């Protein structure tokens, strides 16, 4: 035995530890690994959430004045035409964007699910907008929608039509924001569908081919049934995301004209950060949270169902 090996056994004698498989033993000291995160989690997420519950029962303002009013904020919200309009706008916006995102995303995924260079480049193009910030996106689309010298205005004029002031038209403002949003967000559903299509076992297609199924038949009876779960998941993820519409509306229309494009989050922002009616804004936030928590729960249920088809 060499000297170094002797060293090894000396060490063994020197620090006799009581427990060998320490990881299996419950110890307070192990909490040190999670404590730094837990501290931030509690102070910046849990505490604000519960303080919000409490605050929503108060009439509170910027200057620290605070008076307990019970559920008055909530009953006020239910009679506030601007808030109800914002709720309606939010759901209308979801209706405009979510089905379109899912269907276009699926279509792109089906068209681009092949291993050619062209397909790879096109996938890259369709995802590229997703990495841009909302301020860039809105800036780009404002110069597309602008009535004077905007891209669409120029195109309309080239065809001899009058330019349209999309963002100043109560009927067109929210659809214009929806188009901007679809352009911005199309990458994610496409990628999720592509990932799902890759999971469909090759044997299924071979079996379908042996069964003489044509292209559409294969699409309807093999591909689409195989990605049902992903379709549901994409719908819910997008509902959660689009529910939180804020930047596009804030930067493109400020909720106008005539409140026609004001979503819930923008309402919350304006009440909270410009009117400083904090308790009222937090109450609106609770309602928003309730909606999103329900959608997140649905997402959890679907994600838990592991069977792919």
């Amino acid at each position, binding site marked *: 035995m060499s000297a170094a090996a002797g060293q090894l056994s000396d060490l063994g004698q020197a620090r006799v530890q009581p427990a060998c498989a320490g990881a299996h033993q419950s110890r307070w000291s192990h909490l040190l690994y999670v404590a730094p995160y837990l501290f931030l989690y509690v102070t910046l997420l849990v505490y604000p959430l519960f303080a919000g519950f409490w605050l929503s029962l108060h009439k509170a303002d910027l200057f620290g004045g605070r008076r307990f009013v019970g559920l008055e904020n909530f009953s006020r919200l239910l009679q506030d035409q601007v808030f109800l309009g914002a709720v309606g706008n939010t759901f209308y916006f979801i209706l405009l964007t979510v089905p379109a995102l899912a269907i276009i995303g699926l279509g792109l995924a089906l068209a681009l699910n092949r291993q050619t260079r062209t397909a790879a480049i096109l996938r890259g193009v369709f995802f590229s907008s997703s*990495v841009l910030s909302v301020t860039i996106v809105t800036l780009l689309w404002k110069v597309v929608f602008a009535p004077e010298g905007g891209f669409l205005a120029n195109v309309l004029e080239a065809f001899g039509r009058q330019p349209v002031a999309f963002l100043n038209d109560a009927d067109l403002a929210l659809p214009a924001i929806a188009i901007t949003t679809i352009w911005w967000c199309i990458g994610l559903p496409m990628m999720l569908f592509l990932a799902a299509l890759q999971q469909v076992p090759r044997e299924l297609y071979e079996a379908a081919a042996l069964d003489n199924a044509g292209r559409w038949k294969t699409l309807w009876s093999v591909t689409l049934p195989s990605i049902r779960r992903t379709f549901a998941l994409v719908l819910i993820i997008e509902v959660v995301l689009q529910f939180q519409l804020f930047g596009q509306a804030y930067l493109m229309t400020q909720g106008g004209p005539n409140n026609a494009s004001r979503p819930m989050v923008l309402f919350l922002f304006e009440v909270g950060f410009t009117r400083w009616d904090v308790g009222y804004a937090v109450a609106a936030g609770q309602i928003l949270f309730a909606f999103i928590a329900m959608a997140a729960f649905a997402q959890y249920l679907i994600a838990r169902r592991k069977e792919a088809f």
Partner: protein
Amino acid sequence: MSAQFASGTVGRGFGDRLILGATIALAIVMIMPMLWAVGLSLKTNQALLIDTNSVLRAPWTLTNYYDILIGSGVFRWLLNSIIVSFGMSLGVLVLASLAGYGFARLDFPGRNVIFVLVLFGLAIPEQAVILVRHQLFSDLDLHNTYAGLMLPGMSAPFGVFLMTQYFKAIPTEIDEAAMLDNASRFKIFWRVLLPMTLPAQATLGIFTFLHAWNDYWWPMVSGTNPQMYTLTVGIASTQQNFAESAGLGYLMAQAVFAFVPVLIVYMFFQKYIVRAVSGAAT
């Protein structure tokens, strides 16, 4: 070709070419707004006031970019964005790695309950907490500081969730081999397991970076001093005086200046970025 394509393995005729053509047309629509912005940025403000169709004709000019170089807040905003995004990413990686290892490998009183409570945090939207958080940061004097801009992003549970899953997927045989190799608990974490989580670190790092870079609401209400604007907030601030004081060409040059580097980074790291964003969603 990919066997997964719905048409099966044989025959790619007219139908395929039609689909490809339609997809390419859609892709052109997709990049049109960006091209339009680049075109506008290459014209003088005066030329654009007369007719924006002039972007299709010479002369083009780089004056707008020159104007940015000599007098614009853009560089300061860029620096802020870089500091905040790197800082937040680093913070998230450190916190999530430690916590993920703790939840996946160590036992402590209440571990499973605490982990479930952290998972509930995934369902809390920023809008539900932002007002109280804003007041909290006012009380702590954290507004208009880098820490104030970085800390909220570090409290999000996604990273902890991702790292916990990743650590759990590493066989415990590896830990045991290291124990027999006389490695201390921290050494097992630092020298053995952590290097094995590099793919997850990349995913989480990129995701956090993108989130921080593109975040708008919190930096807008927290970093209200123009010296503390991030690029996203700064670009937004210029839109208030859209096409008026600064001029359309100058404004577009700023936008191009802001999004082209992002797109270039995206081209190089596309694979990781796609995985990061998709991984965060599911």
